[in-house]
């Protein structure tokens, strides 16, 4: 199996703090990879390096055979990697539809003439995007799809997460990075959201997902393999059962039984 995403020996330092220490990480096409580890172990930093928000001092990131090390976030998105954020980053005053369209940026026309003067062409593009956004939301929650015209600020956390994932999926990426999608939700809500994610994955052939998660039940249920980080270092990898049995992982993160 060839890796869609491959990070080699990534090192990212903030002053004296080594957030990532020669981390190797790979995700095969179509796989769901879990990224786990205690708080501050470098999971989100790894996402930020992959998506171009931070620059790694050493190491390389390869995506679909192309070297994307140090590329700007905009280029990473265009290459086909999208993400959600640990602390949900939505445009709260804007409508659900507007928020999802932010994620659709690369597929929309941004010319001045198109947007200001060719209004019927614009209206056609709008109608098509609207139908797509609605259809995508429908997979997650038909009830939420009815609220596509409402401001995001009025929606509960679980719905905001769903919309954030819709925003990440609308441009049909090849790789989706989910940064703790269950943060701030109940067990029941988390289960619902994971069902949604699995459902969406079923319908989008070949979507690869990397998920950061603290709920081990979720990781066990949906991931094919896992990578465990501790103090910026990779300490274990393999199936969940294998890493859960790893002595080092138990000491660093899961706790010794």
């Amino acid at each position, binding site marked *: 199996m060839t890796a869609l995403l491959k990070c080699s020996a990534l090192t990212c330092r903030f002053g004296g703090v080594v957030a990532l220490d020669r981390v190797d990480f790979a995700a095969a096409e179509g796989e769901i990879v879990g990224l786990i580890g205690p708080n501050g172990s470098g999971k989100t930093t790894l996402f930020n390096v992959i998506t171009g928000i931070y620059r790694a001092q050493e190491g390389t990131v390869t995506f679909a055979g192309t070297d994307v090390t140090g590329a700007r976030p905009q280029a990473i998105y265009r290459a086909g990697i999208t993400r959600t*954020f640990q602390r949900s980053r939505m*445009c709260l005053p804007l*409508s659900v539809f507007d928020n999802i369209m932010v*994620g659709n*940026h690369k597929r929309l026309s941004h010319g001045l003439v198109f*947007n200001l003067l060719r209004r019927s062409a*614009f209206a056609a593009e709008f109608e098509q995007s*609207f139908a797509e956004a609605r259809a995508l939301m429908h997979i997650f929650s038909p009830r939420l799809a009815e609220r596509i015209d409402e401001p995001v600020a009025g929606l509960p956390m679980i719905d905001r997460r769903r919309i954030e994932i819709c925003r990440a999926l609308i441009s049909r990426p090849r790789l989706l990075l989910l940064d703790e999608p269950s943060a701030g939700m109940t067990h029941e809500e988390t289960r619902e959201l994971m069902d949604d994610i699995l459902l969406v994955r079923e319908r989008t052939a070949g979507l690869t997902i990397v998920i950061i998660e603290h709920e081990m039940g979720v990781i066990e249920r949906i991931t094919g393999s896992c990578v465990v980080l501790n103090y910026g270092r990779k300490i274990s990898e393999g199936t969940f059962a294998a890493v859960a049995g790893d002595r080092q992982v138990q000491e660093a993160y899961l706790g010794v039984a």
Partner: protein
Amino acid sequence: MTSSSPLPALAFAAVMIVYGIAFLGAERERAVGALIVAAAAGVALAARFGLLAKVRASIDANERTFDAAVIAGVIIAALWFHEEHFVLLMLTTALLLMVAALGLTVQFGYAGVVNFAGAAFLGIGCYTAAVLTNYTSVPPLLILPLGGIAAALIGSILILPVLRTRGHYAALVTIAFGILFKTFIEVNDALGGPQGMRVGSFTLAGWAFNDPIRIGTFEASFYFSYVFVALVLLILAFALVRRLERSWIGLSMDAIRLDEVASACYGLDIARWKVLAFTLGNVLAGCAGALYGHVLGFIAPNNFTFGDSLILVSIILLGGIGNPWGVAVAAAFVVILPEKFQVIQEYRFALYAGLVILVLLFRPEGLLPRRLRQYPGRRLGARAAKAP
């Protein structure tokens, strides 16, 4: 539901026209005070009985009709006061400040680019008109867009510092620019120095606007024709800003204002949208300024102080950041009120400051808060309102 009937919108427009004419014509301070109290009471009562919601739904459903009614209202007001120099000057000034404030709306309201040098960009337009009428024979109709282009070009000096700074620092950069502009004019004798500069008359197809108008028995002030040019400029600016907002460009500008990191992760080029918003806003201010120069006939550096820039900012804060109609209401208010209350003329900055503080405290989104984006052919929110 009768939300599609244009009647409430038209009735509202009619009331506004009558009220506007009464307000413009009121001479005694007591009458002006009574009109303000009546407006406050009227709005409160209309809200109490659900009339405002009806009017709003009707305006939403019949936008073009309402636009036309408002334009007709300005024309009726101009005809009504066709001999009154001062009233027509006030009206023209209000229309032109609306254009400049619409420019600020694009910058500040959409893309989140602060600009505390609005008056300087207005001034660049004015001085462009002055220089071109004094030293060249460029036709005035061309001077208006040239004023906009000059403002955009000179404003482009600011693009790098504005892109590299955030928040207070970006504000300071623009404040510094405003002060530099005024100083530059003051020390520059070719531009009239502190004494100022004359601006030639606006002409259209050989007809000089500064000559009084006499058609048969109809006589009108020379400001009469300026009202119409200003109105055309405002209509163009309003259409531009509204279309911009209801497009993917408006969405991109909102997104970078609200969250730069998330926007970058979704491919939005932060600099591109900020530069576009800043440039478009300056073009609007510059065009308005070029015509304003013609209207005033004589301009001096003191017309374009930091205080005047603050007035432009207070217009968008009062009206509702990002809402073009809010800008219209607030600009009319800010221009006309101090002229009507001569007693407060001296204290008008104190009045604006007080008003802005009150609005920010009690109605932080302005008198007419911005609403969700409406796309062509679809009224967002309309269907949500219909749902049981």
